[in-house]
């Protein structure tokens, strides 16, 4: 119980979502009726946030590019959904059914995470990216061709829908659990080992970090929560169709992580919520003939934000108008002037505020030497 180390700002996301959950839970218990569109939006946002936060662990903190996150979600959705559909006749559409399906889906996805984690030990950068993409497509293809009796094949797997008045609360609680596990992992010594591997694998090895173990752990945790999101999805829908989980979905999750800023969990959460909001609201605003504009808007917003956030030429401009930096300055001087020299605090800050070009460089070479060593074949 070392409360000195406890920093409110590090857990601000947790508390904001927690308070939101409690308020909504209280309102629900007092029989307030929310419009369905709000409930569906909350469910979708929660699923996206879980996916983005879990992917952020692999992409932002371990520094490996994964394009198959939807594949883990697919495994979770199908297995969780199947278990739920078998349990409902026996146990009813109740909380135990929900929890058991959740456990099955999460464990199945975790096993897949371990399987994909193994090539990850051997492959780097783009090679790993394509393997994860391949994994996602393989999973999709397998579920697509199952028989009607097992997973429904092309007709989709009919799954029980959970009561929609409560599912979004469960979803929010799962978001909190995801955040608690992932953030605590990142800020623990294990998390520091993971970021050390990202920053320099050989140096990490040299200091005695078990690279194999930590890479596997990161992949498994990430996959587990993708599985959780999958089970959640299966409860929010009445038919699971494998075509949903194609590589475009994986890319969408990756976009959330990157837009939010690599290794910045708060950013990922905001980006996930925002993109989901856009994706679900644009079709309701741009109806009829305007529908063709959705993708155009989405693409333009994406390109502009990424260039604005990352272009080296705009760095000075960004620094001048950066809101978060301003806030950080204020916070530091007011509350905790000593934190700069506090080693532990430094560790906590560093992983969440990495400069973009240090992250995910395919080479193990420091960024300033990156170009000279880059060869055609890379790694």
């Amino acid at each position, binding site marked *: 119980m070392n409360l000195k180390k406890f920093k409110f700002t590090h857990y601000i996301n947790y508390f904001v979502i927690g308070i939101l959950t409690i308020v909504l839970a209280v309102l629900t218990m007092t029989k307030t009726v929310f419009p369905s569109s709000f409930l569906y939006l909350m469910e979708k946002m929660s699923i996206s946030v879980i996916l983005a936060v879990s992917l952020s662990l692999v992409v932002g903190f371990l520094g490996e590019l994964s394009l198959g996150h939807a594949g883990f979600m697919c495994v979770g959705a199908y297995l969780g959904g199947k278990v739920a559909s078998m349990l409902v006749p026996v146990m009813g559409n109740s909380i135990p059914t929900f929890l058991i399906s959740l456990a099955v889906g999460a464990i199945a996805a975790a096993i897949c995470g371990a399987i994909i984690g193994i090539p990850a030990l*051997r492959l780097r950068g783009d090679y790993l990216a*394509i*393997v994860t993409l391949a994994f996602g497509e393989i999973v999709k293809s397998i579920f697509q061709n199952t028989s009607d009796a097992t997973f429904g094949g092309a007709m989709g797997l009919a799954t029980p829908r959970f009561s929609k008045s409560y599912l979004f609360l469960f979803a929010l609680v799962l978001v909190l659990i995801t955040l608690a596990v992932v953030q605590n992992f990142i800020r623990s010594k294990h998390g520091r080992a993971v970021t050390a591997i990202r920053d320099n694998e050989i140096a990490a090895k040299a200091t005695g970090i078990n690279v194999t173990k930590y890479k596997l752990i990161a992949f498994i945790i990430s996959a587990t929560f993708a599985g959780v999101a999958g089970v959640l999805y299966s409860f929010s829908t009445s038919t699971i169709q494998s075509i949903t989980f194609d590589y475009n979905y994986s890319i969408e999750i*990756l976009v959330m992580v990157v837009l939010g800023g690599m290794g910045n969990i708060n950013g990922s959460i905001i980006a996930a919520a925002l993109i989901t909001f856009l994706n679900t609201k644009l079709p309701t605003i741009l109806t009829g003939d305007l529908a063709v504009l959705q993708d*155009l808007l989405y693409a333009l917003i994406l390109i502009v934000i990424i260039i604005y956030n990352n272009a080296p030429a705009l760095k000075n401009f960004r620094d001048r108008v950066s809101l978060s930096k301003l806030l950080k300055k204020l916070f530091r001087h007011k509350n905790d002037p000593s934190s700069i020299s506090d080693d532990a605090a430094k560790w906590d800050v560093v992983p969440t505020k990495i400069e973009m*070009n240090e992250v995910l*460089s395919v080479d193990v070479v420091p960024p300033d030497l990156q170009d000279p060593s880059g060869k055609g074949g890379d790694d």
Partner: protein
Amino acid sequence: MELFLTTLINGLSLGGIYAMIALGYTMVYGIAKMLNFAHGDIIMVGGYTIYVFMATKNPFLAIFMAVLFCVILGILIEKIAYKPLRGASPLAVLITAIGVSYLLQSLALIIFKSASKTVTVFELKSVSLFGVPVQISALLTLAVTVVVMVVLTLFIKYTRLGRAMIAVSEDKGAAQLMGINVNGIITVTFAIGSALAALAGLFLLMRAPNLTNTFGAMPGIKAFTAAVIGGIGSIPGAMLGGILLGFVECIAAKITVIAPYTDAIEFSILIIILLVRPTGFLGKKRREKV
């Protein structure tokens, strides 16, 4: 024999198309160190350009315009979307490329609407080869692919510009010190890649003349896979990977039991190959330095 020959020719011509697209991926990767996810959509743009200019009933003009338009588009995309991000994280560039891909697809949807367009570039029949009917378009694809590969290899090996490209891919900083215009080289690379994509679009249309705004997406992904199998950054690797993938696809589609799993099989082969050779068939192994 008949089965063997048709599968062989089919596989080779599909593989040739994949190889041509994979070349674009691999060259851009080798020189700009980025995965150009929008590459597949350049194919689509090429297809639509051919469709538009086929109104003149002159297929050669249409092909020429497609190549020209794709080259200009490729250069523009590089200048507007990718160049500002040079020096930024590879992932930021990747996401921008994805954004460009969505942008091209949605523009195509707005301009050409959703109904698919069927484009017949050449009226080609099939010929008899050892008593087996073979599509002329497949043979043509094969021939052009071989020519393109040879020309490209010679170009890179024996011209100043080609050697400058190798230099840039080996070591950007040193190349700049030697007086090579790195930005110019990157532009040339994008131009060549886009021209190849336009040609690939032509051959895809000859195989399957239905044009929609996602026309290039799956061939793009498959070609990316091919580039990785062959070793990304390596030009002969791209050819090898493309042809291997083309064969696998054609053979798998032949066998009814496994036909629905064609994708899964192709991707499984990729994973297996990468597990045995982590940098693909011809990818360079590099020792890790600290």
